[in-house]
């Protein structure tokens, strides 16, 4: 029996192991999907922010949020949840814009991590 895939310690390893339960090919396809979807949803969120549409921003963030869960990034989910809650005030003030900038920076770091994890999964599944 081959050695199981080991997720990066930067991700929520125990949850990911439970979620994928040894189906590493499925994990690969989900990571690929998430890597593709996140930029689209963040672009939409950015657009809504520029249009000062708090509800539109909240909806875009709400849709993006669970994606980070499927790849073991609960801290990013929590950041998004915080922003979602603030969007409910209907006001997109300076603090919100700062939060969004911080979120984008976090997601930039996450994306590098996810790309690397996807590469490792692809390599593992080829063996």
């Amino acid at each position, binding site marked *: 029996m081959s050695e199981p895939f080991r997720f990066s310690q930067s991700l929520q390893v125990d949850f990911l192991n439970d979620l994928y339960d040894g189906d590493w090919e499925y994990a690969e396809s*989900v990571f690929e*999907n998430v890597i593709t*979807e996140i930029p689209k949803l963040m672009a939409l969120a950015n657009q809504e922010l520029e249009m000062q549409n708090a509800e539109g921003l909240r909806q875009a963030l*709400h*849709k993006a949020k669970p994606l980070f*869960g499927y790849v073991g990034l609960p801290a990013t989910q929590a950041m998004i949840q915080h922003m979602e809650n603030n969007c409910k005030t209907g006001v997109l003030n300076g603090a919100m814009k700062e939060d969004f900038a911080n979120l984008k920076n976090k997601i930039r770091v996450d994306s590098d991590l996810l790309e690397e994890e996807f590469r490792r999964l692809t390599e593992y599944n080829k063996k």
Partner: protein
Amino acid sequence: MKISCIIVEDLQVAADFLLKFCEKSGLLEVKGHFSNVADALVFLNEQTIDLIFLDVEMPGATGFDLLDQLVYSPSVILTTSKTEYAYNAFQYNVTDYMKKPFTYQRFQEAIGKVKKAEVNTATIESNDYIFIKADGKLIRLNNDDVLFMESMGDYVKFVTPAKKYVTLNTIKGLEEKVNKSAFLKVHRSYIVNIHKIDDIQDNTLYIKGNYIPISKAHRADVMKKLNIV
């Protein structure tokens, strides 16, 4: 026999996980996947299914909007990434509430609840009477004698044409125990005997001189149960 279900979910990754889990369980037959409420309703108006996996926030309308418009009551498992809908979930009497993402083990727990509810319903359907604890004894009430049940906090009042009985119980607890072919919850505080309804006007029904409110969450169930010609 497999549980027939549909998935109403606009996030493809989440829908794919549900499809995978349904297939893995061997207990469910997925009849369709819909990414919005309108398409799901078209399907649900044509076919009857046992279970809906239902996201809450979707483009155009919410999962609760779908439940408001359904003309029958399949089991519902809400799938959402927010915990704040828990109160609504309780109000709509959903079977379970899963926060995305969830594992296969959590999925199995939810399906277990659906199966348990089905078994309870099947057992209860055959009862044409209930025993209540009142006045220091167990009293048998035939279903046909009960007009309705009304919540009084931790107590429930059973109203019959001849007498009213107060028991230590809750409407939620009773909902699971009464014969569903005779009784229907129409409001969080009321279960009525379907066969005793005299008339209905807007969101109020009338039983032998008693006006009983119908909540928005239960209106579709009530209309479905009535023999409207």
